[in-house]
C-alpha cells in the first residue's frame, strides 16, 4: 500500500466536529425501492449534515445510484421518507430537487453533447436581456470565466461532445456548483478524471465544505474517500450495513463490510499476483507504426503470450485509440497489425476477431454491451457462427457456453434471460468479459476494465486477468488507475499525443518511473 | 344516334371526337371584347396546359394526348405548348398555373383537380386577360370574367343516365351498391347525387344498400367490392363511378365465383377495358365521359380570338355503350 505520498495530503481538520454539531440537512428513513426482479433498496436510512462530506460506498449494484435517484426525485421510493431541511419532501424530479437546492453530478456524464459548452453550463439558467432573450454574448463570457476556474480554457462555443471526457465532467461539476446548492451529490465524479483534474475537484469540494454545503460522495476509490470524507454509509445488496465516521473504520474493515466477508489485511490493494512468466517466444501481437491522422503517430509495440502489457499515459494520450486501432475499429492511415506472425490486411473488427483479438471498449454502455438484450445473447453475440450450423444457432450450445462463463466469472443475474441493462455495472462488465472470453481469443485488449466497478468485482476482474495471462493469453491493459496499471502489467508502454514516449520493463515498472516518463516527455 | 364506326382507325378517331351536345342557347356567351383580351394568333402563341393527375389511366392519357395532338395539328411549335402535371396535388396545380402565367402563355387550358380554390390564379390571369378554358371539370367561378368557358360533360347527367340504365337492367327492383369515387371530389359528388336522385325518381323499388369509396382506382375498387360482396352477397347491381373501379369489381365478382351477368354493373367513362367488359358480358352498360378535349378546346379558342361569341358552358355529347353497340363501337372507346 504505497499510496501515501501519491497525493499531497491536506487535512480536513476540525470538520468532523462542526459537521456533527450542525442540523441534518437531508434525512432518509426506511427507504425501499423495488425493480422487476431486484430489490435495489431495502429499508435504507441515511443522514447528511451541513458541511459534511459523506461517503456512500458499496459494491456494484449495492444501490448507491438508486438511493441518489430517490433523493433527487428521479425515482419514487416504494416506502420510506425523505426529509430535507427538517420537512418531508417528495421531489417531482431533478428540477424540483435542484430548485430546492440539491444539485447532482450523475455517474455518467449527463450533458448534451451537441450543444455548446456554454449552453450546457447555463441550460435552464441562461442570462437574459431586457427583452427576455438569452444574452448569448454574456453567457459565453461568463461561461469562459467560470470554467477557467476549473482549468478549462477551450472555446465555450464549441459543442461539448468534442471535449475530452474529463473536461466534460468538469463542466458538469461547474454546473452543479453554480446554483446556490445546499447539497451537492457526486456519483463517481472521478472515474473519468486525470490526477490534475481530481485535485481541482477536491479544491472545489473543499470550498463547498467551507461554505457549509453538504456533499454526498460516491466512489470506488478508497484512497479518495479517506482523503476527503468525514462520514460514511455502507450499503450491501440494497441494505444499510453500517453508517458512521469514516475515520473510525479501518480500510480493511470498510472493504469487508462492503463485501460481507472478512478480508485479510495483508493483501495488496490490487489483486494482481505480480510478474507473469512471459514466454520469450514469438509475440502473439505485434503492432508496427500505427498512424492515424491527429490520433496516432507511429505507435509500435508487441505482446508475447502470457504477458500483460500496460498502456500508460494521461487522459487523451491515445491509449483508447491504440486499442481501437489494433481491434480494427479505427481507420488507419498506415501501420501493420500482426497476430501470431500473420498480418491482418485492412484490419476490421470482424477480421481482428477472426484473428483472435478481443476488445473490451472503454465505454461499456455506449460501445460494449447491448443493454436491451439478455445476458445470454450478449455473451453469445461474438461467437454465433461457432455456435451454429449453416447459420442456424444451436440453443444447446449457447446454453453450455453461457453456463460456463456465468459460473466462471460469477455473474450475478436472476437468470441468463435477464436484460443486461438491469444488472449492476460490475456484472455488466463481467458479461462483457464473458463475451470476449467466449471467442477464445489469443489477445485481450482491455480498456479500463475496472472503471466504475466496486472493490469486490475489481478484485475478481484483476485476478481473472492474471489467470488469463497465466493461461497464455496476451493482454493489453489500459487503466487510469496508476496502481492497477503498474501492479497488473509486466511491461508498460507509455504514450503521449498518440506516440510512444517510453517503455518500462522489469524493475522499472513502478509508479515513480511511470510518472517520471510522463513528466519528462511533457517537458 | 351515333354514327356507325368505320373499321379504319382514322375513321374511328374522328368518330370518337367530341361533339357538343348543347350550346346552351339560353346561357350567357362571351366575346373577346367582353373578356377584355387581345387577339392572338394561335399558330404562334404560347399555350399552357395544366393536367391534374398523372397520365396513368386511360382518361388522362387520352386527354393529354388529345391536347398535344391538336396543338401539333394546328402547327403550334412544340416549345410553345407548355404542359405541367400536378400529380394529384392541388397546391402544385395552383403553382403550376401561376408559373405558366409568369411564362407568358396567351391561352390556358386547365384540367382542374378541384372545382374550388382558384381565386389566386384568377387574380393573376384576369389581370393579364389570359383566357382560361377549363376542361372536364368545371371551376366554380364567373364565366367570361374569371374564365372563358367550360368544356366537358355533365357529371350529374352521367349519373342520371347510369341510374336509368340500372333501372332498366334490374327491372326496377333489387339492391344496388355504389363504388364511390375519391372523396371530396366534385365528380364523385355529382355522379352520386345524379344517380341517387334519378334512381329515387324512376325506380323507387331499387334499394341502395352500400356505398363506399373505391378512390377511382382498380385496386381499391376491387377491395371494396370484395368487402361489399361479403356483407351483401345477394346484391343485384353495382354502380361504379368510373371504369377502373368497375374492372376491379369484376375481378372481385370472379373471385366470389359469380358468373358474368349475375350482378349488373353500370359504369362511367368508356375506356376500352370497360367496353370490352360489355362484350364479355360482365358489364351491363357504360356511360361515356369523353376525354378528347383537344379539337374542341382549340377550335373554341380560335373562334374566341376571331371575335365570335363563346357559350359559357360547352357540354359535350357523351356516348353510351351497351350490348347493342359495344362490339361495333369498341374502336371508339379510349
Amino acid at each position: 500500500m504505497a499510496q501515501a505520498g501519491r497525493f499531497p495530503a491536506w487535512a480536513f481538520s476540525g470538520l468532523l466536529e462542526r459537521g456533527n454539531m450542525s442540523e441534518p440537512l437531508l434525512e432518509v428513513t426506511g427507504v425501499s425501492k423495488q425493480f422487476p426482479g431486484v430489490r435495489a433498496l431495502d429499508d435504507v436510512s441515511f443522514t447528511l449534515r451541513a458541511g459534511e462530506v459523506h461517503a456512500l460506498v458499496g459494491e456494484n449494484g449495492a444501490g448507491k445510484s438508486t438511493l441518489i435517484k430517490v433523493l433527487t426525485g428521479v425515482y419514487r421510493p416504494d416506502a420510506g421518507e425523505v426529509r430535507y431541511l427538517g420537512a418531508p419532501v417528495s421531489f417531482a424530479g431533478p428540477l424540483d430537487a435542484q430548485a430546492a437546492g440539491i444539485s447532482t453530478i450523475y455517474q455518467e456524464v449527463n450533458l448534451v453533447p451537441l450543444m455548446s459548452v456554454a449552453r450546457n453550463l447555463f441550460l435552464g439558467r441562461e442570462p437574459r436581456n431586457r427583452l427576455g432573450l438569452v444574452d448569448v454574448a454574456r453567457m459565453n463570457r461568463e461561461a469562459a470565466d467560470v470554467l477557467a476556474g476549473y482549468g478549462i480554457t477551450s472555446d465555450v462555443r464549441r459543442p461539448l461532445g468534442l471535449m475530452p471526457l474529463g473536461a466534460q465532467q468538469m463542466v458538469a461539476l461547474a454546473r452543479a456548483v453554480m446554483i446556490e446548492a445546499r447539497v451537492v451529490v457526486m456519483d463517481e465524479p472521478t472515474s473519468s478524471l486525470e490526477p490534475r483534474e481530481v485535485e481541482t475537484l477536491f479544491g472545489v469540494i473543499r470550498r463547498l465544505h467551507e461554505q457549509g454545503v453538504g456533499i454526498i460522495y460516491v466512489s470506488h476509490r478508497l484512497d479518495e474517500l479517506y482523503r476527503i470524507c468525514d462520514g460514511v454509509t455502507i450499503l450491501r445488496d440494497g441494505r444499510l450495513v453500517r453508517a458512521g465516521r469514516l475515520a473510525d473504520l479501518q480500510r480493511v474493515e470498510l472493504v469487508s463490510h462492503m463485501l460481507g466477508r472478512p478480508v485479510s489485511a495483508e493483501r495488496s490493494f490490487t489483486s494482481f499476483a505480480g510478474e507473469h512468466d512471459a514466454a520469450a517466444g514469438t509475440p502473439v501481437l505485434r503492432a508496427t507504426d500505427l498512424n492515424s491522422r491527429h490520433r496516432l503517430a507511429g505507435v509500435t509495440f508487441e505482446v508475447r503470450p502470457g504477458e500483460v502489457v500496460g498502456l500508460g499515459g494521461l487522459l487523451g494520450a491515445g491509449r483508447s485509440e491504440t486499442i481501437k486501432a489494433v481491434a480494427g475499429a479505427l481507420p488507419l492511415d498506415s501501420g501493420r497489425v500482426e497476430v501470431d506472425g500473420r498480418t491482418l490486411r485492412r484490419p476490421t473488427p470482424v477480421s481482428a476477431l477472426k484473428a483472435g483479438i478481443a476488445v473490451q471498449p472503454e465505454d461499456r454502455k455506449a460501445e460494449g454491451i447491448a443493454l436491451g438484450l439478455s445476458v445470454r445473447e450478449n455473451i453469445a453475440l461474438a461467437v454465433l457462427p461457432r455456435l451454429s450450423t449453416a447459420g442456424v444457432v444451436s440453443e444447446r450450445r449457447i446454453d453450455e457456453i453461457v453456463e460456463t462463463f456465468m459460473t466462471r466469472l460469477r455473474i450475478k443475474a436472476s437468470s441468463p434471460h435477464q436484460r443486461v441493462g438491469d444488472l449492476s455495472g460490475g456484472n455488466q462488465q463481467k458479461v462483457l468479459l464473458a463475451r470476449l472470453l467466449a471467442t477464445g481469443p489469443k489477445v485481450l485488449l482491455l480498456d479500463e476494465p475496472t472503471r466504475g466497478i466496486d472493490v469486490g468485482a475489481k478484485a475478481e476482474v484483476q485476478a481473472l486477468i492474471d489467470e488469463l495471462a497465466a493461461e497464455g493469453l496476451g493482454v493489453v491493459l489500459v487503466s487510469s488507475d496508476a496502481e492497477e496499471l503498474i501492479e497488473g502489467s509486466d511491461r508498460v508502454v507509455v504514450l503521449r499525443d498518440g506516440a510512444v514516449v517510453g517503455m518500462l520493463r522489469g524493475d522499472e515498472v513502478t509508479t515513480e518511473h511511470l510518472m517520471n516518463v510522463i513528466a519528462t516527455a511533457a517537458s | 344516334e351515333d354514327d356507325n364506326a368505320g373499321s379504319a382507325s382514322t375513321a374511328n378517331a374522328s368518330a370518337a371526337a367530341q361533339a357538343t351536345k348543347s350550346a346552351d342557347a339560353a346561357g350567357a356567351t362571351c366575346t373577346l371584347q367582353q373578356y377584355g383580351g387581345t387577339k392572338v394568333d394561335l399558330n404562334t402563341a404560347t399555350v399552357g396546359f395544366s393536367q391534374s393527375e398523372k397520365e396513368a389511366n386511360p382518361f388522362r392519357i387520352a386527354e393529354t394526348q388529345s391536347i398535344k395532338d391538336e396543338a401539333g395539328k394546328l402547327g403550334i411549335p412544340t416549345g410553345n405548348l407548355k404542359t405541367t402535371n400536378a400529380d394529384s396535388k392541388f397546391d402544385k396545380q395552383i403553382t403550376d398555373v401561376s408559373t405558366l402565367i409568369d411564362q407568358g402563355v396567351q391561352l390556358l387550358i386547365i384540367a382542374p383537380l378541384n372545382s374550388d380554390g382558384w381565386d389566386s390564379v384568377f387574380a393573376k390571369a384576369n389581370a393579364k386577360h389570359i383566357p382560361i378554358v377549363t376542361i372536364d371539370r368545371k371551376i366554380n367561378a364567373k364565366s367570361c370574367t374569371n374564365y372563358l368557358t367550360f368544356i366537358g360533360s355533365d357529371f350529374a347527367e352521367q349519373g342520371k343516365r347510369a341510374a336509368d340504365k340500372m333501372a332498366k337492367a334490374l327491372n326496377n327492383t333489387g339492391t344496388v351498391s355504389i363504388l364511390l369515387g375519391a372523396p371530396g371530389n366534385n365528380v364523385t359528388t355529382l355522379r352520386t347525387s345524379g344517380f341517387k336522385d334519378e334512381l329515387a325518381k324512376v325506380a323507387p323499388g331499387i334499394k341502395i344498400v352500400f356505398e363506399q369509396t373505391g378512390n377511382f382506382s382498380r385496386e381499391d375498387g376491387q377491395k371494396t367490392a370484395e368487402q361489399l360482396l361479403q356483407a351483401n352477397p345477394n346484391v343485384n347491381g353495382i354502380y361504379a363511378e368510373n371504369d377502373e373501379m368497375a374492372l376491379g369489381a369484376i375481378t372481385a365478382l370472379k373471385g366470389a365465383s359469380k358468373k358474368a351477368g349475375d350482378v349488373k354493373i353500370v359504369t362511367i367513362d368508356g375506356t376500352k377495358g370497360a367496353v370490352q367488359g360489355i362484350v364479355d358480358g360482365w358489364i351491363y352498360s357504360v356511360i361515356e365521359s369523353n376525354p378528347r378535349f383537344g379539337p374542341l378546346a382549340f377550335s373554341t379558342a380560335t373562334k374566341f380570338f376571331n371575335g365570335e361569341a363563346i357559350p359559357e358552358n360547352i357540354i359535350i355529347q357523351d356516348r353510351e355503350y351497351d350490348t347493342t353497340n359495344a362490339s361495333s363501337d369498341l374502336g371508339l372507346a379510349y
Partner: protein
Amino acid sequence: MSTVTTAPEAVERAEAASMRTERIVELVQRQGALAVLALVIVVGVVSFDSFRTFDNLGTVLISAAPPALIALGMTFVIVSGGIDLSVGSLYVLGGVLAAWASQYGTWAAFALPLVVCGVFGLVQGSIIAYARLAPFIVTLAGLLGARGLMLALSGEGANTYLVRTDAFKHFGTGELGGIGYPVYLVAVLFGAGMLLLYRSRFGQSVYAIGGSEDAARLMGVRIRSTQIRVYVLSGLLAGLAGAINAARLGSGVTVLGTGMELDAIAAVVIGGTLLTGGAGTLGGTIAGVMLLQVIQNLINQIGTVTSAWQTVISGAFIALVVVAQTYLARLRRVASG
C-alpha cells in the same frame, strides 16, 4: 500529410490547419442547401428568360409560404427529437375551418383553425409526453384523425366552404411590391421562430431534449412541457398554413395535403437538421423549402418533363443533397479528430 512526427510544434500546426478545415467544412455543411440552392438558381437564371422575372420570384415565394410554415414547425419538432406526420392533415383541416369560419369575419377565420389545430397538437404532444408513445405512431394516428375530422366537417369532402370575407381573401391574394402578403407574414414568423429557437430558454430546452433526453431530464429541463409545446407549435403553424392557403385559394379545398408531411420532412432534412434531433437551423430549413420549390419551378420552366421523370428528379435531388451533407459531416468529424 501524416503526423508521424511527435514534435509539439508540428502537432500544433496540424491542429490549427484542421481547425481551419473544420470551419470551412462546417460552413458548407450548415449552408449546404443554400449552396445548392444558389447553384440551381444560377442555372435557372442562365437558362430561362422567364425564370429571372420578378413575377416568377413572387410565384415561387407565395407557393413556398404554406410549406415553409409547416417546415418551420417541423424543424422545432425534429430538433426536439420527434417527428410530426399529422401536419398535412392539419393543413387541410385548417383550410376547411378557416373557410367555414370566414363567414364570421377575418379574425374568426384565423382563430378557429389555430385553436383546433393547436388543440390537436396539444393532444398529440400530451400523448407523446405522458404516455411515452413514439411520435411517429402518435402523429400517424393524428394524420388519420385530422383527415377524418376534416371529411366529417365537409360532408365527406363534398362541401367546399367558400371564403366569405373579402378582407380575408384579400390577405391571401393581395400583394405588396409584387410579393404576396402571406410571404411577409411567413418572413416575420421565421424571424420570431429564430428568436424562439436560438434565443429563448424554450429553444434551449428543445435542443437539449433532442440532443439527449436523459441528460436534459437530469439537468432539470421540463421534458414534457417542452415536448407538448413543440407539437402545439407545429399544429398551430400547420393550421395557420391552412388558413393562409384558404385565403389564397378562396375556399376550403379538401383535396390537399397528402404527402405534405414528407415534403416538410424532406425540406427540413435537406436544410441540415438531424432527424435524430439536437441540431438544426431554421436558415437551413428555409433553404430546403426554397430548394424544393425552385426545382419544381425549373421543371415547369422546361415544360416538357413528364410527371414520371419529375418524380425521379425530385427523389434524386433529395438523395444527392443529403448524401453530400453526410459526407461533409464525416469530413468534419475527421477534421476535428
